C-alpha cells in the first residue's frame, strides 16, 4: 500500500497515519517506509477510543488470523516487530472536505486491512456513508461465559491479559455518549488512573474538575488533558483529601457549580505512618475520612442532578482483608503501609454500599470498582518490587480507568447502585470467608465516619447507626 499512499497524496488527498507508539517509533517508521504524509502519535489511545476501534486479544489471536495475515503478506505488508500497544486494532476512514464520511473500516482482527480498491471507490463517490456500529468480538459470549473460571486467579485476570480477555465482552456502544451537559469531579487527577479517567471523560465531552493536592502537578495535568482532547472545559481545584478543612473548602466551591459525577480516586500508600492535618492516620484520612466528608457535603449538589453518580476507586488488594475497625489509626500496631492500604480499600467498598443505601430514595447511584494491576507512578513508587516483577503484564492507566469511565458515562452506571465492579462486570466483594464483616462492623464504620452528616470537628464519635442496620437513613 506504500505506492497507493503516494498516489493518493499526489491526487490531492491528505494522508494521515495515526499510530499508538511513541514519537521515536513514529520517526523510525517514517524513515523505514519513506512516508511523506502526516504521521501522528496517539500513545494514550484518545483518538482510537473516539473512533471506536476495537481492542483486545483479537488483535493478536483470531479464527481468521492466518488467512488474514497471509493475505496481508501477499499484498506486501510486513510485520517487523511490535512498536506500540499490541492489543489495539486499527482502522481506516475517508473524509470528504468538511468531514463527511466516505469510508468507515474498523479492523476486526490482526491482518484485517482495508483494501486500496475500497479507498479508491470511496474517494470517487460523493455520497456520505453511515459510520456503522463498532465491531463486536466473535469471542464475546465465550469470554463472558468462561469469566468466572478464568478469573479465579489474579494472574491472568487483574493484569493486561485479563483486560484483553474481558474487553472481548465490552460493548463499544456503551461509551458512544455525549457528556457535554455533565460535570465530573475526579480526585487525584494529576496522574495514573485519575488522569486517565479525566482524559477519557473530557474526550467524551464532559466538563472535568481535576482535584489535585499539588498545584503544579495539577496544572500540568490539566494542560495535558486540554491538549490531548482539544477540550477547554477542564479546570483544576487544588485540595488535599486528607485535610478535612481543605475538603470542606473544596466541597463548598464544587457545590456552587453542581456535580453530576464524583470520582473518589485520590490515594496514598506511605511506607511509614503519617498523620493528616487533623491528626488522622494519613491512609485513613485520604481514603475514608476525606471522601466520606466530601460525599456528605456534596449531597445537595448531587441530589440536584438528574443522574448523579459517586464512584469509589478501590483496589483488588481489599479482597485479602476484612473490615478492621479495632485500630483504624494504627496506634496499637506496628505500621504496615500495605495493610493499611488494603484495610482502607475494603472500608471504601463497605462505605460505598452504605452510601448507596443512604441515597436510595434520592436517585444518586453509588459504585465501587477496582482497576486491576495498573502501571501507574503511584504503583512504581509505593510498590517498587511488585512493579519491577509485574511490569511486563501491568495494565496501562487507561485500561485501569476503563471501568471508572464506563460507570461514569454509560447507561449501566445509572441502572444499579451499591455494587462492586471489575472490568465492567459486577463481581463479588469476598473471595474468602475470613474477609466477611462481623456483626456490627458496618454500624461501627458508619459511626466512625460520622454518619450521613459528619461534624468535621466531632467525626468518628457520633452515635448514629448505619442505614443498613435500621433501614432508614441515619441522622
Amino acid at each position, binding site marked *: 500500500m506504500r505506492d497507493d499512499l503516494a498516489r493518493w497524496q499526489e491526487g490531492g488527498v491528505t494522508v494521515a497515519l495515526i499510530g499508538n507508539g511513541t514519537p521515536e517509533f513514529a*520517526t523510525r517508521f517514517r524513515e523505514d517506509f519513506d512516508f511523506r504524509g502526516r*504521521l*501522528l502519535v*496517539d500513545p494514550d489511545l484518545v*483518538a482510537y477510543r473516539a473512533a471506536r476501534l476495537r481492542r483486545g486479544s483479537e488483535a493478536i489471536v483470531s479464527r481468521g488470523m492466518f488467512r488474514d495475515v497471509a493475505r496481508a503478506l501477499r499484498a506486501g505488508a510486513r510485520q517487523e516487530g511490535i512498536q506500540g500497544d499490541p492489543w489495539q486494532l486499527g482502522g481506516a476512514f475517508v*473524509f470528504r*472536505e468538511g468531514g463527511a464520511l466516505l469510508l468507515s473500516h474498523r479492523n476486526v482482527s490482526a491482518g484485517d486491512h482495508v483494501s486500496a480498491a475500497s479507498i479508491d471507490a470511496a474517494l470517487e463517490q460523493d455520497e456520505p456513508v453511515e459510520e456503522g456500529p463498532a465491531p463486536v468480538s466473535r469471542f464475546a459470549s465465550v469470554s463472558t461465559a468462561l469469566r468466572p473460571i478464568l478469573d479465579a486467579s489474579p494472574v491472568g485476570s487483574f493484569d493486561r491479559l485479563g483486560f484483553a480477555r474481558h474487553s472481548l465482552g465490552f460493548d463499544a456502544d456503551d461509551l458512544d455518549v455525549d457528556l457535554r451537559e455533565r460535570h465530573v469531579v475526579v480526585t487525584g487527577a494529576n496522574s495514573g488512573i485519575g488522569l486517565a479517567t479525566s482524559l477519557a471523560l473530557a*474526550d467524551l465531552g464532559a466538563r472535568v474538575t481535576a482535584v489535585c493536592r499539588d498545584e503544579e502537578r495539577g496544572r500540568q495535568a490539566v494542560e495535558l488533558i486540554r491538549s490531548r482532547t*482539544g477540550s477547554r472545559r477542564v479546570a483544576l481545584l487544588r485540595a488535599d483529601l486528607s485535610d478535612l478543612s481543605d475538603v470542606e473548602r473544596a466541597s463548598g466551591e464544587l457545590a456552587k457549580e453542581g456535580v453530576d459525577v464524583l470520582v473518589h480516586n485520590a490515594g496514598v500508600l506511605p511506607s511509614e505512618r503519617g498523620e493528616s492535618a487533623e491528626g488522622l492516620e494519613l491512609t485513613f484520612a485520604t481514603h475514608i475520612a476525606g471522601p466520606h466528608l466530601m460525599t456528605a457535603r456534596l449531597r445537595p449538589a448531587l441530589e440536584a442532578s438528574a443522574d448523579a453518580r459517586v464512584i469509589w476507586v478501590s483496589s483488588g488488594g481489599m479482597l485479602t482483608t476484612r473490615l478492621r475497625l479495632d485500630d483504624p489509626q494504627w496506634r496499637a500496631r506496628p505500621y504496615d503501609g500495605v495493610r493499611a492500604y488494603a484495610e482502607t480499600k475494603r472500608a471504601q467498598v463497605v462505605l460505598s454500599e452504605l452510601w448507596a443505601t443512604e441515597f436510595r430514595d434520592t436517585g444518586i447511584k453509588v459504585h465501587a470498582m477496582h482497576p486491576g494491576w495498573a502501571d501507574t507512578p503511584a504503583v512504581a513508587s509505593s510498590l517498587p518490587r511488585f512493579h519491577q516483577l509485574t511490569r511486563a503484564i501491568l495494565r496501562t492507566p487507561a485500561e485501569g480507568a476503563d471501568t471508572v469511565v464506563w460507570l461514569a458515562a454509560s447507561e449501566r452506571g445509572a441502572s444499579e447502585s451499591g455494587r462492586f465492579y471489575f472490568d465492567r462486570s459486577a463481581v463479588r466483594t469476598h473471595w474468602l470467608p475470613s474477609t466477611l464483616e462481623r456483626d456490627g462492623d458496618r454500624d461501627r464504620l458508619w459511626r466512625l465516619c460520622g454518619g450521613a452528616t459528619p461534624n468535621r470537628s466531632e467525626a468518628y464519635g457520633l452515635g448514629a447507626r448505619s442505614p443498613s442496620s435500621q433501614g432508614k437513613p441515619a441522622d
Partner: protein
Amino acid sequence: MTQRLADRIGAIELQDPARGTPQALAALWSEGPALVLFLRHFG
C-alpha cells in the same frame, strides 16, 4: 449521523513528531479529502 465521527475526533490534538506542535485532526479534512489510517502499531 455521518458527521458524528468527524465531530468526535476532530477536536483531538495529536502530535506529528516531524512538526512539533500538536494539531487538531479536523485540520486534515478542512481543505480537501483526507484518508486517516489508524495503524495497529508502528511495527
